């Protein structure tokens, strides 16, 4: 009896532990992506824009290009990178949702 409840407990802790590590990897990924998000928009598009304007790209001043074009392209890429990386994190920690989605959606 006591042995069984012990294994249950260990399983529970290891599951909680697994979730905790999953969450921390998630937060690390978020940190990296949001850093890029901040740099291209508020960094290159606003704070550093005047300085970047001395360079040029495709005929634009660089700071102006980031503010009106470049940052938007980076945003799109960021979300797809996130969706991909999270999918592999989900798999690594076994918390994904790709097992039998049909059954789930019927619930």
């Amino acid at each position, binding site marked *: 009896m006591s042995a069984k409840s012990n294994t249950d407990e260990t399983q529970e802790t290891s599951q909680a532990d697994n*979730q905790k590590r*999953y*969450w921390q990897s*998630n937060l690390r990924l*978020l940190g990296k*992506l*949001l850093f890029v*998000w901040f740099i291209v*928009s*508020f960094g290159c*598009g*606003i*704070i550093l824009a005047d300085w970047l*304007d001395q360079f040029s*790209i*495709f*005929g*634009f*001043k660089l700071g*102006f*290009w980031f*503010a*009106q*074009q470049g*940052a*938007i*392209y980076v*945003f*799109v890429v*960021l*979300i*797809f990178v*996130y*969706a991909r990386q*999270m*999918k592999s994190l*989900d798999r690594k920690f*076994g*918390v*994904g*949702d*790709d*097992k039998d*989605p049909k059954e*789930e*959606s*019927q*619930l």
Partner: protein
Amino acid sequence: MSTQLLTYLFVGSSFALYIGIAIWSRAGSTKDFYVAGGGVHPVVNGMATAADWMSAASFISMAGIISFIGRDGSVYLLGWTGGYVLLALLLAPYLRKFGRFTVPDFIGERYYSQAARIVAVICLIFVSFTYVAGQMRGVGIVFSRFLEVEVTTGVIIGMAVVFMYSVLGGMKGITYTQVAQYCVLIFAYMVPAIFISIMITDNPIPQLGFGAEVNDGSGLSVLDKLDGVLLDLGFSAYTEGSKSTIDVFAITAALMFGTAGLPHVLVRFFTVPKVSDARLSAGYALAFIAILYTTAPAVASFARLNLVDTVHNTAYADAPEWFGNWESTGLIAWQDKNDDGIMQYGAGAALSPSKPSFDGNTGVHGERLLTNKSTSSVNEVYIDRDIMVLANPEIAGLPGWVIALVAAGGVAAALSTAAGLLLVISSAISHDLLKKTLLPKITEKQELLYARIAAAVAVCIAGLFGIYPPAFVAQVVAFAFGLAAASLFPALLLGIFSKRANKEGAIAGMLVGLVFTFTYIAYFKFVAPELNTADHWLWGISPEGIGTIGMLLNFSIAIVVSRLTAEPPQSVQDLVDNIRIPSGAKAAVEH
């Protein structure tokens, strides 16, 4: 075929299409009505989100505003796209995992409190009505110019169409009409943009033409030429900003965080089958949005160049036809200050007060006479920013079918957003206010009926806003973002990322954020508009950007109050653990 007839044909057939879809996708259950049954494919949802998102402000006003303020217009481009990164990374997957019908539903459950739910409903209604007012006005503008009907008639026709598919079809009807509306609006936006880009730079891709050389043999790039032309006329250079860095920063942040906190966008992610679909779907949504958002600044610069070319130093008698057409709607006016019969365009307001009021007579050149006083500026021409996108094809001399297409696109953009907003308003009322709070005993059938009634009432109120508009489109919409950023975003974010956040903190934070932001905006916009200058603003932050400060206030108060009061019950902490992992997500369910 005349442009007029083509416009009727295009707008009319697009309406027939939307209504057809509405009848085909009638909602049978509350789940259909609130979240389209929960089985929408991520690409389809991405497209619907893009249409939901791109409103009359994006379609009609944004390029016009950028056209007039040049570099400072970046705040809209960055703000209204960057918010999707926050939405995708911080909110959408978790709210999908939570799997309920509405945003207040999440707040109510997560903060285990009916009071929190009600506060969220109030925030939602504030935000959504501010936003919907802009949409109906957009419909009115398109109708009054292109179909030559009264604005009021135009708004009523628009209301009737939205009524059809939102009341009948709920989220299900809205989702599939929005997909059709996305196709109409993006096509309508891109066709003239490509034509104009070819005309000005020989480059068919507007995003590249924007940086290319003008094909007039001058060897100057579009932006260099525009800078030069505008400096000559006394404006500041197009690529130089005039807003302070802190204000640009604050406005961009308010728009970004506001985007992530907008209920009508968030609720779209409740409709996909899985958590991983919600993440992907946000990516598709932004990709579809980016097509328009990277084209808009190009259109803005081309339009400004074209406008100066065609208007400045042109005799009124030789003015192109579009000038008179828009003059008759009151969105363009000319006052011949130096009696030479020639229009001089330049910096500064042409008229005092700056909006034209006509006395009903016409002058010697055939222009509509004004009761406004002249200003000391040499500028004689008043041009409403809202017309730039709509007038652009005419200014560039494009064929009639392009003009008709733009009219259909403008209406599609306004209607798709209005429908999405009306849906979240009606579901907040029928689901959160009635079913979850006041009348918990009603059956699903009754709830569905209440949802339809609430949608119908909301359509009528929105129509009134359209007939008696508060201010011009994008400006009104910009405030909705400040309010969303300051009220809903922090409560949602903390609800997912902090287990310690409790009901006391969330309620206090939302209330302070909303009241602070609303008061600041109302003070400078309505109570004391004469004080609305940088000297009187808090740290030089304009009412458009104050949502950022409201949001920071909300966060600090929510965190501090949560620390000082009891931690949330275990069941709520378990709920937070549960929404953090994707596995076991069910389709949105009644509970």
